[in-house]
Protein backbone atom coordinates (compact mmCIF):
# COMPACT_ATOMS: atom_id res chain seq x y z
CA UNK A 1 0.00 0.00 0.00
CA UNK A 2 1.06 3.57 -0.65
CA UNK A 3 2.62 5.23 2.40
CA UNK A 4 2.31 8.99 2.92
CA UNK A 5 5.51 10.97 3.25
CA UNK A 6 6.63 12.29 6.63
CA UNK A 7 6.46 15.87 5.29
CA UNK A 8 3.16 17.32 6.49
CA UNK A 9 2.67 19.29 3.30
CA UNK A 10 1.67 22.25 5.45
CA UNK A 11 5.07 23.81 5.86
CA UNK A 12 7.17 24.77 2.89
CA UNK A 13 9.38 21.86 1.94
CA UNK A 14 12.89 22.11 0.50
CA UNK A 15 12.97 24.52 -2.44
CA UNK A 16 14.53 22.04 -4.86
CA UNK A 17 15.24 24.39 -7.73
CA UNK A 18 13.83 27.57 -6.16
CA UNK A 19 11.06 27.37 -8.77
CA UNK A 20 9.69 30.76 -9.78
CA UNK A 21 6.99 32.20 -12.02
CA UNK A 22 5.93 35.65 -13.14
CA UNK A 23 2.52 36.59 -11.74
CA UNK A 24 0.29 39.50 -10.82
CA UNK A 25 0.29 40.72 -7.21
CA UNK A 26 -3.21 41.38 -5.80
CA UNK A 27 -4.04 43.72 -2.87
CA UNK A 28 -4.90 40.77 -0.58
CA UNK A 29 -1.50 39.13 -1.10
CA UNK A 30 -2.66 36.47 -3.55
CA UNK A 31 -0.94 36.06 -6.94
CA UNK A 32 -2.68 35.79 -10.29
CA UNK A 33 -1.39 34.12 -13.45
CA UNK A 34 -3.82 36.06 -15.65
CA UNK A 35 -5.02 39.66 -15.37
CA UNK A 36 -8.69 39.69 -16.31
CA UNK A 37 -11.61 41.94 -15.51
CA UNK A 38 -14.48 39.57 -14.64
CA UNK A 39 -18.01 40.38 -15.75
CA UNK A 40 -20.05 38.23 -13.35
CA UNK A 41 -23.77 37.45 -13.57
CA UNK A 42 -25.24 37.43 -10.07
CA UNK A 43 -28.12 35.42 -11.54
CA UNK A 44 -28.55 33.28 -14.64
CA UNK A 45 -31.09 35.67 -16.16
CA UNK A 46 -28.44 38.40 -16.46
CA UNK A 47 -26.20 36.14 -18.62
CA UNK A 48 -27.13 37.82 -21.91
CA UNK A 49 -25.98 41.21 -20.63
CA UNK A 50 -22.80 39.73 -19.17
CA UNK A 51 -21.96 38.08 -22.50
CA UNK A 52 -22.74 41.30 -24.42
CA UNK A 53 -20.50 43.41 -22.20
CA UNK A 54 -17.65 40.90 -22.28
CA UNK A 55 -17.81 40.54 -26.08
CA UNK A 56 -17.41 44.33 -26.39
CA UNK A 57 -14.44 44.75 -24.05
CA UNK A 58 -11.09 43.05 -24.60
CA UNK A 59 -9.42 41.79 -21.41
CA UNK A 60 -12.69 40.76 -19.81
CA UNK A 61 -14.10 37.28 -19.17
CA UNK A 62 -17.81 36.43 -18.82
CA UNK A 63 -18.81 34.45 -15.72
CA UNK A 64 -22.20 32.92 -16.52
CA UNK A 65 -24.24 30.19 -14.84
CA UNK A 66 -27.77 28.93 -14.20
CA UNK A 67 -27.98 29.77 -10.49
CA UNK A 68 -29.03 32.67 -8.29
CA UNK A 69 -32.84 32.47 -8.38
CA UNK A 70 -35.07 30.80 -7.40
CA UNK A 71 -33.52 28.23 -5.12
CA UNK A 72 -33.45 26.59 -1.74
CA UNK A 73 -31.45 28.40 0.96
CA UNK A 74 -28.65 25.83 0.74
CA UNK A 75 -28.28 26.51 -3.00
CA UNK A 76 -28.46 30.29 -2.68
CA UNK A 77 -25.82 30.26 0.03
CA UNK A 78 -23.52 28.10 -2.11
CA UNK A 79 -24.10 30.32 -5.15
CA UNK A 80 -23.25 33.41 -3.11
CA UNK A 81 -20.05 31.91 -1.68
CA UNK A 82 -19.06 30.72 -5.15
CA UNK A 83 -19.64 34.16 -6.72
CA UNK A 84 -17.54 35.74 -3.98
CA UNK A 85 -14.79 33.15 -4.50
CA UNK A 86 -14.77 33.71 -8.27
CA UNK A 87 -14.56 37.49 -7.78
CA UNK A 88 -11.70 37.06 -5.33
CA UNK A 89 -9.80 34.63 -7.58
CA UNK A 90 -6.27 36.01 -8.03
CA UNK A 91 -6.55 35.87 -11.85
CA UNK A 92 -9.09 38.71 -11.54
CA UNK A 93 -7.94 42.36 -11.29
CA UNK A 94 -11.41 43.93 -11.02
CA UNK A 95 -15.03 42.80 -10.99
CA UNK A 96 -18.22 44.07 -12.59
CA UNK A 97 -21.28 42.33 -11.15
CA UNK A 98 -24.33 42.26 -13.40
CA UNK A 99 -27.71 41.55 -11.81
CA UNK A 100 -31.29 41.53 -12.97
CA UNK A 101 -32.61 43.29 -9.87
CA UNK A 102 -35.11 40.92 -8.29
CA UNK A 103 -32.93 37.83 -7.78
CA UNK A 104 -32.89 35.87 -4.53
CA UNK A 105 -29.11 35.89 -4.25
CA UNK A 106 -27.92 38.88 -2.19
CA UNK A 107 -25.87 40.75 -4.82
CA UNK A 108 -25.01 43.67 -2.50
CA UNK A 109 -23.47 41.19 -0.07
CA UNK A 110 -21.56 39.53 -2.90
CA UNK A 111 -20.15 42.95 -3.79
CA UNK A 112 -19.16 43.71 -0.19
CA UNK A 113 -17.45 40.34 0.25
CA UNK A 114 -15.44 40.67 -2.97
CA UNK A 115 -14.51 44.28 -2.10
CA UNK A 116 -12.86 43.02 1.11
CA UNK A 117 -10.08 41.65 -1.11
CA UNK A 118 -9.18 45.25 -2.00
CA UNK A 119 -9.87 44.95 -5.73
CA UNK A 120 -12.28 47.32 -7.54
CA UNK A 121 -15.88 46.03 -7.68
CA UNK A 122 -18.95 47.61 -9.27
CA UNK A 123 -22.54 46.37 -9.37
CA UNK A 124 -25.15 47.19 -12.01
CA UNK A 125 -28.68 45.83 -12.34
CA UNK A 126 -30.91 45.77 -15.40
CA UNK A 127 -34.16 46.68 -13.66
CA UNK A 128 -32.57 49.73 -12.01
CA UNK A 129 -30.63 50.89 -15.08
CA UNK A 130 -33.55 50.58 -17.49
CA UNK A 131 -33.26 47.31 -19.37
CA UNK A 132 -30.66 45.26 -21.21
CA UNK A 133 -29.44 47.82 -23.77
CA UNK A 134 -28.75 50.58 -21.24
CA UNK A 135 -27.20 48.13 -18.78
CA UNK A 136 -24.90 46.76 -21.49
CA UNK A 137 -23.85 50.31 -22.43
CA UNK A 138 -23.20 51.23 -18.81
CA UNK A 139 -21.34 47.98 -18.22
CA UNK A 140 -19.13 48.45 -21.28
CA UNK A 141 -18.12 51.89 -20.02
CA UNK A 142 -17.30 50.62 -16.51
CA UNK A 143 -15.47 47.54 -17.83
CA UNK A 144 -13.38 49.64 -20.22
CA UNK A 145 -12.15 51.79 -17.35
CA UNK A 146 -11.39 48.70 -15.26
CA UNK A 147 -9.43 47.04 -18.09
CA UNK A 148 -7.34 50.16 -18.68
CA UNK A 149 -6.47 50.36 -14.97
CA UNK A 150 -5.69 46.62 -14.85
CA UNK A 151 -3.40 46.92 -17.87
CA UNK A 152 -1.00 48.99 -15.79
CA UNK A 153 -0.34 46.05 -13.46
CA UNK A 154 2.90 44.24 -14.43
CA UNK A 155 4.05 40.69 -13.78
CA UNK A 156 6.51 40.17 -10.91
CA UNK A 157 8.54 37.14 -9.81
CA UNK A 158 7.02 34.80 -7.21
CA UNK A 159 7.94 31.43 -5.75
CA UNK A 160 6.03 28.25 -6.60
CA UNK A 161 4.65 28.28 -3.04
CA UNK A 162 2.09 30.79 -4.36
CA UNK A 163 0.63 28.26 -6.80
CA UNK A 164 -2.83 26.79 -6.24
CA UNK A 165 -3.52 24.18 -8.90
CA UNK A 166 -6.80 22.35 -9.47
CA UNK A 167 -7.15 18.95 -11.16
CA UNK A 168 -9.87 17.14 -13.04
CA UNK A 169 -9.99 13.98 -15.12
CA UNK A 170 -12.55 13.60 -17.84
CA UNK A 171 -13.20 11.44 -20.87
CA UNK A 172 -10.86 8.92 -19.27
CA UNK A 173 -9.75 5.65 -20.79
CA UNK A 174 -7.46 2.76 -19.87
CA UNK A 175 -4.41 5.01 -20.23
CA UNK A 176 -5.56 7.63 -17.69
CA UNK A 177 -4.85 5.71 -14.48
CA UNK A 178 -1.54 4.30 -15.69
CA UNK A 179 -0.04 7.42 -17.28
CA UNK A 180 -1.56 10.94 -17.16
CA UNK A 181 -3.06 10.69 -13.66
CA UNK A 182 0.18 9.23 -12.26
CA UNK A 183 2.15 12.09 -13.80
CA UNK A 184 -0.27 14.57 -12.21
CA UNK A 185 0.13 12.75 -8.87
CA UNK A 186 3.87 13.23 -9.10
CA UNK A 187 3.30 16.88 -10.03
CA UNK A 188 0.99 17.25 -6.99
CA UNK A 189 3.81 16.02 -4.74
CA UNK A 190 6.22 18.55 -6.29
CA UNK A 191 3.87 21.53 -5.97
CA UNK A 192 2.90 20.63 -2.38
CA UNK A 193 6.54 20.12 -1.38
CA UNK A 194 7.26 23.56 -2.88
CA UNK A 195 4.67 24.95 -0.45
CA UNK A 196 1.87 25.36 -2.98
CA UNK A 197 -1.61 23.88 -2.94
CA UNK A 198 -3.16 21.12 -5.04
CA UNK A 199 -6.93 20.67 -5.22
CA UNK A 200 -8.88 17.78 -6.65
CA UNK A 201 -12.51 16.71 -6.30
CA UNK A 202 -15.11 14.53 -8.02
CA UNK A 203 -16.72 12.50 -5.23
CA UNK A 204 -17.92 10.03 -7.87
CA UNK A 205 -14.29 9.26 -8.66
CA UNK A 206 -13.21 9.01 -5.01
CA UNK A 207 -15.81 6.35 -4.13
CA UNK A 208 -13.99 3.37 -2.68
CA UNK A 209 -10.85 5.33 -1.84
CA UNK A 210 -12.33 7.67 0.76
CA UNK A 211 -10.89 5.64 3.65
CA UNK A 212 -7.42 5.47 2.06
CA UNK A 213 -7.50 9.26 1.61
CA UNK A 214 -8.99 9.86 5.08
CA UNK A 215 -6.12 7.81 6.55
CA UNK A 216 -3.75 10.34 5.01
CA UNK A 217 -5.47 13.32 6.68
CA UNK A 218 -3.38 15.59 8.91
CA UNK A 219 -6.15 15.55 11.54
CA UNK A 220 -8.94 13.01 12.16
CA UNK A 221 -11.67 15.62 11.58
CA UNK A 222 -10.31 16.32 8.09
CA UNK A 223 -10.58 12.64 7.22
CA UNK A 224 -14.04 12.46 8.78
CA UNK A 225 -15.16 15.42 6.64
CA UNK A 226 -14.36 13.36 3.54
CA UNK A 227 -16.12 10.24 4.87
CA UNK A 228 -19.18 12.41 5.66
CA UNK A 229 -19.13 14.03 2.22
CA UNK A 230 -19.13 10.60 0.53
CA UNK A 231 -21.87 9.36 2.85
CA UNK A 232 -24.04 12.40 2.08
CA UNK A 233 -23.35 11.98 -1.62
CA UNK A 234 -24.59 8.37 -1.54
CA UNK A 235 -27.61 9.34 0.59
CA UNK A 236 -28.58 12.08 -1.87
CA UNK A 237 -28.53 9.52 -4.65
CA UNK A 238 -30.63 7.08 -2.61
CA UNK A 239 -33.19 9.79 -1.79
CA UNK A 240 -33.76 10.08 -5.54
CA UNK A 241 -33.75 6.30 -6.02
CA UNK A 242 -30.24 6.04 -7.48
CA UNK A 243 -27.52 3.69 -6.27
CA UNK A 244 -24.45 5.77 -7.06
CA UNK A 245 -22.12 2.83 -6.35
CA UNK A 246 -23.66 0.76 -9.12
CA UNK A 247 -23.70 3.76 -11.45
CA UNK A 248 -19.99 4.35 -10.98
CA UNK A 249 -18.68 1.94 -13.59
CA UNK A 250 -20.17 2.67 -17.00
CA UNK A 251 -20.54 0.30 -19.92
CA UNK A 252 -17.67 2.12 -21.59
CA UNK A 253 -15.50 1.79 -18.50
CA UNK A 254 -16.05 -1.99 -18.43
CA UNK A 255 -15.31 -2.31 -22.11
CA UNK A 256 -12.12 -0.36 -21.48
CA UNK A 257 -11.02 -2.80 -18.79
CA UNK A 258 -12.29 -1.20 -15.56
CA UNK A 259 -13.78 -3.98 -13.43
CA UNK A 260 -14.92 -2.30 -10.19
CA UNK A 261 -15.74 1.10 -8.66
CA UNK A 262 -12.61 0.83 -6.52
CA UNK A 263 -10.46 0.25 -9.61
CA UNK A 264 -12.00 3.29 -11.28
CA UNK A 265 -11.49 5.58 -8.29
CA UNK A 266 -8.00 4.16 -7.66
CA UNK A 267 -7.00 5.22 -11.17
CA UNK A 268 -8.47 8.67 -10.52
CA UNK A 269 -7.07 9.37 -7.06
CA UNK A 270 -3.47 8.70 -8.09
CA UNK A 271 -3.76 12.36 -9.16
CA UNK A 272 -3.55 13.17 -5.44
CA UNK A 273 0.05 11.97 -5.17
CA UNK A 274 1.39 10.86 -1.81
CA UNK A 275 1.36 13.92 0.50
CA UNK A 276 -0.96 14.14 3.54
CA UNK A 277 -4.52 15.37 3.07
CA UNK A 278 -4.52 18.92 4.44
CA UNK A 279 -8.14 19.92 3.99
CA UNK A 280 -11.60 19.04 2.69
CA UNK A 281 -13.32 22.15 1.39
CA UNK A 282 -16.99 22.65 0.69
CA UNK A 283 -17.94 23.87 -2.78
CA UNK A 284 -17.79 27.68 -2.76
CA UNK A 285 -15.14 27.93 -0.06
CA UNK A 286 -11.50 28.94 -0.49
CA UNK A 287 -8.27 27.04 0.08
CA UNK A 288 -6.04 28.56 2.74
CA UNK A 289 -2.34 27.76 2.66
CA UNK A 290 -0.54 24.99 0.83
CA UNK A 291 -1.04 21.25 0.82
CA UNK A 292 -3.36 18.66 -0.68
CA UNK A 293 -7.08 19.52 -0.66
CA UNK A 294 -10.28 17.79 -1.75
CA UNK A 295 -13.18 19.87 -3.05
CA UNK A 296 -16.57 18.27 -2.43
CA UNK A 297 -19.16 18.59 -5.16
CA UNK A 298 -19.99 17.60 -8.69
CA UNK A 299 -17.66 15.63 -10.94
CA UNK A 300 -18.93 17.49 -14.01
CA UNK A 301 -16.25 19.63 -15.62
CA UNK A 302 -18.25 22.85 -15.92
CA UNK A 303 -19.16 22.83 -12.23
CA UNK A 304 -15.98 21.30 -10.83
CA UNK A 305 -13.61 23.77 -12.52
CA UNK A 306 -15.82 26.64 -11.29
CA UNK A 307 -15.57 25.26 -7.75
CA UNK A 308 -11.78 25.06 -8.08
CA UNK A 309 -11.64 28.63 -9.42
CA UNK A 310 -13.83 29.78 -6.51
CA UNK A 311 -11.43 27.96 -4.16
CA UNK A 312 -8.66 30.22 -5.47
CA UNK A 313 -7.00 27.97 -8.06
CA UNK A 314 -5.09 29.95 -10.70
CA UNK A 315 -4.51 26.98 -13.02
CA UNK A 316 -6.37 23.79 -13.87
CA UNK A 317 -4.90 20.50 -15.06
CA UNK A 318 -7.28 18.21 -16.92
CA UNK A 319 -6.17 14.65 -17.67
CA UNK A 320 -7.96 12.95 -20.51
CA UNK A 321 -7.71 9.66 -22.37
CA UNK A 322 -10.20 9.97 -25.20
CA UNK A 323 -9.86 13.76 -25.42
CA UNK A 324 -11.90 16.32 -23.45
CA UNK A 325 -11.69 19.79 -25.00
CA UNK A 326 -13.17 22.33 -22.60
CA UNK A 327 -11.29 24.85 -20.48
CA UNK A 328 -12.69 27.49 -18.13
CA UNK A 329 -13.08 31.27 -18.53
CA UNK A 330 -11.26 32.07 -15.28
CA UNK A 331 -8.30 29.68 -15.36
CA UNK A 332 -5.91 28.38 -17.99
CA UNK A 333 -6.61 24.62 -18.15
CA UNK A 334 -3.73 22.39 -19.26
CA UNK A 335 -4.91 19.33 -21.18
CA UNK A 336 -2.77 16.29 -20.36
CA UNK A 337 -3.13 12.98 -22.16
CA UNK A 338 -1.22 9.74 -21.80
CA UNK A 339 -2.82 8.28 -24.92
CA UNK A 340 -0.47 8.74 -27.88
CA UNK A 341 -3.32 8.27 -30.36
CA UNK A 342 -5.37 11.05 -28.72
CA UNK A 343 -2.27 13.25 -28.58
CA UNK A 344 -1.79 12.86 -32.34
CA UNK A 345 -5.43 13.06 -33.44
CA UNK A 346 -6.54 15.85 -31.08
CA UNK A 347 -3.24 17.73 -31.09
CA UNK A 348 -4.87 21.18 -31.61
CA UNK A 349 -6.72 20.84 -28.29
CA UNK A 350 -4.01 19.11 -26.24
CA UNK A 351 -1.23 20.79 -24.23
CA UNK A 352 0.87 18.05 -22.67
CA UNK A 353 1.93 14.59 -23.78
CA UNK A 354 2.34 12.04 -20.96
CA UNK A 355 2.35 8.98 -23.23
CA UNK A 356 6.05 8.31 -22.71
CA UNK A 357 5.12 6.55 -19.46
CA UNK A 358 3.29 3.83 -21.39
CA UNK A 359 5.86 3.72 -24.19
CA UNK A 360 8.51 3.16 -21.54
CA UNK A 361 10.61 6.10 -22.75
CA UNK A 362 9.88 8.28 -19.67
CA UNK A 363 9.44 7.58 -15.98
CA UNK A 364 6.46 8.95 -14.04
CA UNK A 365 8.91 11.19 -12.16
CA UNK A 366 10.35 12.62 -15.38
CA UNK A 367 6.92 13.42 -16.76
CA UNK A 368 5.74 14.88 -13.43
CA UNK A 369 8.77 17.19 -13.32
CA UNK A 370 8.19 18.25 -16.93
CA UNK A 371 4.54 18.97 -16.10
CA UNK A 372 5.64 21.14 -13.18
CA UNK A 373 7.88 23.10 -15.56
CA UNK A 374 4.96 23.48 -17.98
CA UNK A 375 2.73 24.79 -15.16
CA UNK A 376 5.37 27.41 -14.29
CA UNK A 377 5.42 28.50 -17.95
CA UNK A 378 1.63 28.74 -18.12
CA UNK A 379 1.64 30.60 -14.79
CA UNK A 380 4.06 33.08 -16.36
CA UNK A 381 1.82 33.70 -19.37
CA UNK A 382 2.17 30.80 -21.82
CA UNK A 383 -1.28 30.27 -23.32
CA UNK A 384 -3.09 26.94 -23.26
CA UNK A 385 -4.92 25.51 -26.27
CA UNK A 386 -8.34 26.05 -24.63
CA UNK A 387 -7.47 29.76 -24.22
CA UNK A 388 -6.05 30.17 -27.73
CA UNK A 389 -8.97 28.40 -29.40
CA UNK A 390 -11.47 30.10 -27.05
CA UNK A 391 -12.86 26.72 -25.97
CA UNK A 392 -13.31 28.21 -22.53
CA UNK A 393 -16.75 29.76 -22.09
CA UNK A 394 -18.73 26.76 -20.83
CA UNK A 395 -19.11 26.89 -17.06
CA UNK A 396 -21.73 26.55 -14.33
CA UNK A 397 -22.12 26.65 -10.56
CA UNK A 398 -22.99 23.43 -8.71
CA UNK A 399 -26.46 23.21 -7.13
CA UNK A 400 -29.85 21.59 -6.87
CA UNK A 401 -31.83 24.49 -8.40
CA UNK A 402 -32.80 22.41 -11.41
CA UNK A 403 -34.96 20.16 -9.23
CA UNK A 404 -36.69 23.06 -7.41
Amino acid at each position, binding site marked *: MRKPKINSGVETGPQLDAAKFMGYRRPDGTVGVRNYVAIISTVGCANEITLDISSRVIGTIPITHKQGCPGVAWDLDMTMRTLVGLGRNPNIAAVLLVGLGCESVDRERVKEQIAKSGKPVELISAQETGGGIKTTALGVEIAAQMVQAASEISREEFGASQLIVGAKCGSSDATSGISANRAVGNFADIVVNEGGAFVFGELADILGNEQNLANRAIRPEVGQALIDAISNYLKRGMSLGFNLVGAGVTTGNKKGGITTV*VEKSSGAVVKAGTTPLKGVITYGDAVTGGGLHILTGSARGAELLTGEAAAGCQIGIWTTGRGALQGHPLMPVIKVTGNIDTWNRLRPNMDFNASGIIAGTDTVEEVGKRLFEEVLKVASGKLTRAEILHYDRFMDIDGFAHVV
Partner: protein
Amino acid sequence: MGNGILTDRSDNVATVISDITKGEIISIKTELGAKEIEAREAVPYGHKVALIHIAKGGEVVKYGIVIGYATRDIEQGEWVHTHNTAEAYVASVAT
Protein backbone atom coordinates in the same frame (compact mmCIF):
# COMPACT_ATOMS: atom_id res chain seq x y z
CA MET B 1 9.17 -1.57 -23.82
CA GLY B 2 6.90 -4.33 -22.55
CA ASN B 3 3.26 -4.95 -23.32
CA GLY B 4 2.11 -4.96 -19.70
CA ILE B 5 2.24 -2.24 -17.04
CA LEU B 6 2.49 -2.54 -13.28
CA THR B 7 1.20 0.46 -11.28
CA ASP B 8 2.51 -0.54 -7.84
CA ARG B 9 5.02 -3.06 -6.52
CA SER B 10 2.30 -4.87 -4.55
CA ASP B 11 0.00 -5.36 -7.57
CA ASN B 12 -0.95 -8.94 -8.52
CA VAL B 13 -2.43 -7.91 -11.86
CA ALA B 14 -0.88 -5.98 -14.76
CA THR B 15 -2.60 -3.79 -17.35
CA VAL B 16 -1.86 -4.83 -20.92
CA ILE B 17 -1.13 -2.06 -23.41
CA SER B 18 -1.81 -4.04 -26.57
CA ASP B 19 -4.39 -6.66 -27.55
CA ILE B 20 -2.97 -9.94 -26.25
CA THR B 21 -3.69 -13.28 -27.92
CA LYS B 22 -3.77 -16.69 -26.24
CA GLY B 23 -0.26 -18.06 -25.71
CA GLU B 24 1.40 -14.68 -26.20
CA ILE B 25 4.20 -13.77 -23.78
CA ILE B 26 3.38 -10.67 -21.75
CA SER B 27 6.46 -8.75 -20.64
CA ILE B 28 6.13 -6.48 -17.61
CA LYS B 29 8.84 -4.13 -16.37
CA THR B 30 9.23 -4.33 -12.59
CA GLU B 31 11.78 -3.04 -10.10
CA LEU B 32 13.26 -6.56 -10.05
CA GLY B 33 13.60 -6.64 -13.83
CA ALA B 34 11.27 -7.83 -16.57
CA LYS B 35 8.68 -10.43 -15.60
CA GLU B 36 7.31 -12.60 -18.36
CA ILE B 37 4.10 -14.58 -18.21
CA GLU B 38 2.21 -16.54 -20.82
CA ALA B 39 -1.35 -15.41 -21.58
CA ARG B 40 -3.75 -18.32 -20.97
CA GLU B 41 -6.39 -16.54 -23.03
CA ALA B 42 -6.91 -13.36 -25.03
CA VAL B 43 -6.71 -10.13 -23.01
CA PRO B 44 -8.00 -6.91 -24.64
CA TYR B 45 -6.05 -3.64 -24.60
CA GLY B 46 -6.41 -1.82 -21.27
CA HIS B 47 -7.60 -4.95 -19.44
CA LYS B 48 -5.87 -6.85 -16.64
CA VAL B 49 -3.96 -10.11 -16.51
CA ALA B 50 -3.15 -12.12 -13.34
CA LEU B 51 0.57 -12.13 -12.49
CA ILE B 52 0.20 -14.94 -9.98
CA HIS B 53 -2.39 -17.52 -8.92
CA ILE B 54 -5.22 -15.74 -7.04
CA ALA B 55 -7.33 -18.12 -4.95
CA LYS B 56 -11.12 -17.82 -4.82
CA GLY B 57 -11.96 -15.00 -2.35
CA GLY B 58 -8.44 -13.57 -2.67
CA GLU B 59 -7.61 -9.91 -3.14
CA VAL B 60 -7.14 -8.44 -6.61
CA VAL B 61 -4.60 -5.63 -6.18
CA LYS B 62 -3.92 -2.77 -8.63
CA TYR B 63 -2.45 0.67 -7.81
CA GLY B 64 -1.42 -1.01 -4.54
CA ILE B 65 -5.09 -1.06 -3.56
CA VAL B 66 -7.56 -3.95 -3.25
CA ILE B 67 -9.86 -3.24 -6.20
CA GLY B 68 -11.86 -6.48 -6.02
CA TYR B 69 -12.09 -10.09 -4.83
CA ALA B 70 -11.71 -13.22 -6.94
CA THR B 71 -15.04 -15.02 -7.35
CA ARG B 72 -13.20 -18.19 -8.39
CA ASP B 73 -9.59 -19.36 -8.63
CA ILE B 74 -7.71 -17.24 -11.14
CA GLU B 75 -4.57 -18.74 -12.72
CA GLN B 76 -1.45 -16.83 -13.66
CA GLY B 77 -1.91 -15.45 -17.18
CA GLU B 78 -5.71 -15.35 -16.99
CA TRP B 79 -7.77 -12.33 -17.97
CA VAL B 80 -9.09 -10.60 -14.81
CA HIS B 81 -12.43 -8.84 -15.20
CA THR B 82 -16.09 -8.87 -14.10
CA HIS B 83 -16.48 -12.59 -14.93
CA ASN B 84 -14.05 -13.58 -12.15
CA THR B 85 -13.78 -10.49 -9.92
CA ALA B 86 -16.35 -8.90 -7.58
CA GLU B 87 -16.68 -5.30 -6.38
CA ALA B 88 -14.49 -4.43 -3.39
CA TYR B 89 -16.49 -1.41 -2.35
CA VAL B 90 -18.79 -1.65 0.62
CA ALA B 91 -20.83 1.53 1.03
CA SER B 92 -20.21 3.18 4.38
CA VAL B 93 -23.77 4.53 4.39
CA ALA B 94 -26.80 2.54 5.62
CA THR B 95 -28.95 1.37 2.73
